[in-house]
């Protein structure tokens, strides 16, 4: 009969309406079954997979419980046990980043020698596509995904270009957001550390035995301490660098520069780089100011 299909469809709608209404009038509507109450109508909702009735979540009063693997914008981990950044400024995250939104400047010590620590670390959150590759490929567990998704600001620049201070969070924060992964990681780290310790001990033992052997020898040569070994390693690296520089200079047909001169040159280079960075930063700020002024007019 004409119209039965229509009525059947309306029946489905009616059933839906009545069921939802009944569920909503219940003591605890189905959608609040596993939720955490925060008072004043605010809740964190953990939607059960078999939930019936109204599915809508009244954001922002009600928010979803996020799964551990939720990814939004990366954060940098401050290792509160060792009191240092886990980041070593190796740059792998910047390399794998698909939109290339990470920018790192490596820190240097008083002599201008680069050290394994970032001086600056920027993520342009407006460009970040939340793919989590930086996290997947970081060999130091230094960068992880944050769950904080309420990032709205009035201006993209500079507010959405996050610097190191804004990105860094203590280890405990990460542990609270990603409890399962944190536990597995800590276990692995502890194991690795133990292994390393054992290796170091074995090495130290061997060195001690060697030193003892050397001391036992009648020769008056000073015992090679581990510090001495380190120094010689540093010297070797330096020598190699000089050789490389010499080879380069030789290609140009110039005389080999003295070690002192090359060191000075390196220092100068670092200074120049720093100056360039400063210059760039200043320029960017200037441009931002200019833009703002133009926009204001």
């Amino acid at each position, binding site marked *: 009969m004409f119209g039965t*299909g229509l009525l059947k*469809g309306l029946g489905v709608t009616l059933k*839906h309406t009545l069921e939802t209404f009944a569920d909503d009038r219940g003591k605890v509507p189905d959608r609040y079954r596993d939720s955490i109450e925060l008072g004043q109508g605010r809740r964190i909702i953990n939607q059960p997979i078999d939930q019936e009735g109204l599915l809508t979540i009244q954001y922002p009063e009600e928010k979803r419980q996020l799964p551990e693997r939720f990814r939004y914008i990366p954060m940098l981990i401050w290792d509160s046990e060792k009191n240092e950044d886990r980041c070593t400024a190796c740059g792998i995250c910047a390399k*794998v980043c698909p939109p290339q939104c990470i920018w*790192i400047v490596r820190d240097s010590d008083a002599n201008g020698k680069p050290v394994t620590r970032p001086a600056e670390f920027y993520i342009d959150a407006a460009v970040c596509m939340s793919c989590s590759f930086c996290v997947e490929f970081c060999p130091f*567990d230094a960068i992880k995904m944050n769950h904080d998704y309420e990032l709205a600001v009035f201006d993209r620049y500079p507010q959405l270009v996050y610097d190191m201070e804004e990105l860094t969070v203590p280890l405990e924060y990460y542990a609270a957001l990603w409890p399962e992964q944190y536990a*597995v990681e800590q276990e692995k780290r502890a194991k690795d550390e133990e292994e390393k310790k054992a290796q170091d001990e074995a090495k130290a033992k061997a060195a001690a035995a060697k030193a003892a052997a050397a001391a036992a020898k009648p020769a008056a040569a000073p015992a090679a301490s581990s510090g001495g070994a380190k120094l010689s390693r540093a010297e070797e690296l330096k020598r190699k660098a000089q050789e490389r520089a010499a080879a380069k200079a030789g290609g140009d047909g110039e005389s080999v520069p003295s070690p002192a001169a090359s060191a000075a040159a390196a220092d100068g280079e670092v200074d120049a780089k720093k100056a360039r960075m400063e210059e760039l930063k200043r320029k960017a700020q200037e441009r931002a100011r200019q833009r703002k002024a133009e926009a204001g007019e």
Partner: protein
Amino acid sequence: MSATLVAEAPDQTQTGTLADVLPGVLGTTSDDTDKAYLVAADKILDALAYLRDKEGYDFLSSVTCVDYQGYNGKQRKGISERFDVVYHLYSTKKGGGHVVLHAPIPSNDTIASATSLFPGANLQEREVYDLYGIKFEGHPNLRRILLWDGFNGHPMRKDWKEAYFDEDSKPFRSRHPKGSYEFHEDKLPWGKNATYPAGWDPDTWQAPVAYVPVSQAPKHLGEAHLDTESIVVNLGPHHPSTHGVFRMLTRIEGETILALEPEMGYLHRNHEKIGERNTYLMNMPFTDRLDYLNSMSNNWGYALAVEKLTGIEVPERAEYIRVIMAEFTRFVNHTWSIGFILNDLGALQTPALYAIEEREMILDLFEEVSGARLMCNYLRFGGVVRDLTAGWLTKARYLANDRLPRALDELDRMLTDNEILMARGRGVGYLPAEDLISLSVSGPMIRAAGVAYDIRKAEPYGVYDRFDFEIPTLPHSDIYDRYYIRLLEARQSVRILQQALADIPGGETVGFGDYASATLSQGFGSIMGGKGGYNLRPPEGEAYARVESPKGELGFYIASDGKPNPWRYHVRSPCYINLNALGPMSVGYKLADAVVILGAIDIVLGEVDR
């Protein structure tokens, strides 16, 4: 161009003989993943006609172009032509693999258009013209499609650089600790760095009067001896019926459509150029953004192409996970699509909201394993990024065995017998199956025309050959069938899900590769781990892999020169190519039907415009 050509040994395989009988064949590309026939540009129509008429390759799946300027690989030794137009043909009758034709383009950048043999080449040739500047002789409507008139140059050419060009390939050195970075904010291309074509002035330029093909004289004497006039009505780009920013130019008389011309490109971002500058891995999250309802299928298509090129094996459990994700995605897409067909018919929101209730639960599951609801970025070459979480399978089984079938039954009860839906849908938007195939239409659209062609059966990938499921078909090829076929396909998806969730090897979690992190094991799969695992370098060659995405045949064509960045990365987008049929399907129906006809093609503009 003899250096790359392999001496033709008359072997017994079909392809071996094909090289002898194919008109204009110059040779084949040597030991490639996907063997291609080099065909002289002036003989291309003969070759295509031969393949269509004699060999049964009736489906011109993909037409694209590769720019070999600066290519250093062995493959191009001895070939001086810069561009190759590449054709991929399949057979909907026989199923199975493809035939690939490479036609080196002479220096006047011109080749004959394939539209006379395969009308489905229409949009794809326009795209090649737009992005590469190759002219197709005999094309009925060769003008830019994704870009506008004031765009200078052809951006997919290797020598084209955008404003504030950074570098040819990622990673950019400037981002590295030693580099000097500039904020993206200061690189935006509006300002003094914009360039225009020669002799083109932005101040005096006016948008051209809308081109609308006239299949009938615009002014003529009506039946009642009244002067009538057909008029142009512009639907979109900002209109909810167009499912995004898409424009339909219609010429109507009364309410009857005389001609319809799709206009697109509003969401164009040159996905393929970005893809060429990215490393192989970096492209994965970009594929999420193509058809943003189905990121899992998109990931799979791309992963499949790279795996084919590199020869990577996927562990069995990962294959099952992929199937599960893809079928959940198909369910999401089809219910979404049903809801919005009804929306377009004027049943505003109620069916749509009922239809996407279960989507919520499925997205929760996606989020739990991958960390995101839409942009999942979950698959990797050789597997998936991490294993399922504890308890995930229980929830998924509840959905597949209980909730999803129930939801489909309810949709079925609510809509299928509905008289209004029948009145609006029956007989509207009809196009016979052979026309649809020659227009390169794929997916639910041709299955609603009675063609049982599904890549999961015709050329099985993953572990689809292990599941017991059917390809539903419907005979009428109208709006109603296109609605109903999606319901039937969603039922088959549920069927596959039930089997896959029951058979998945390893149980709840396997216990290794649970987390993706370089310090733990990295990725649930084979190759992504280790130092520098992000730097994949497939061997030189090319590969085309396709999946049955919910919208149709989603193909990825990748050409590698052995470097970390793909030489060519092309997406054969089902939404885009299915739009070939929009004009022919709409002519003769009412203007209000055009909205539903578009809705029943089921497009996502992220994939149309790329």
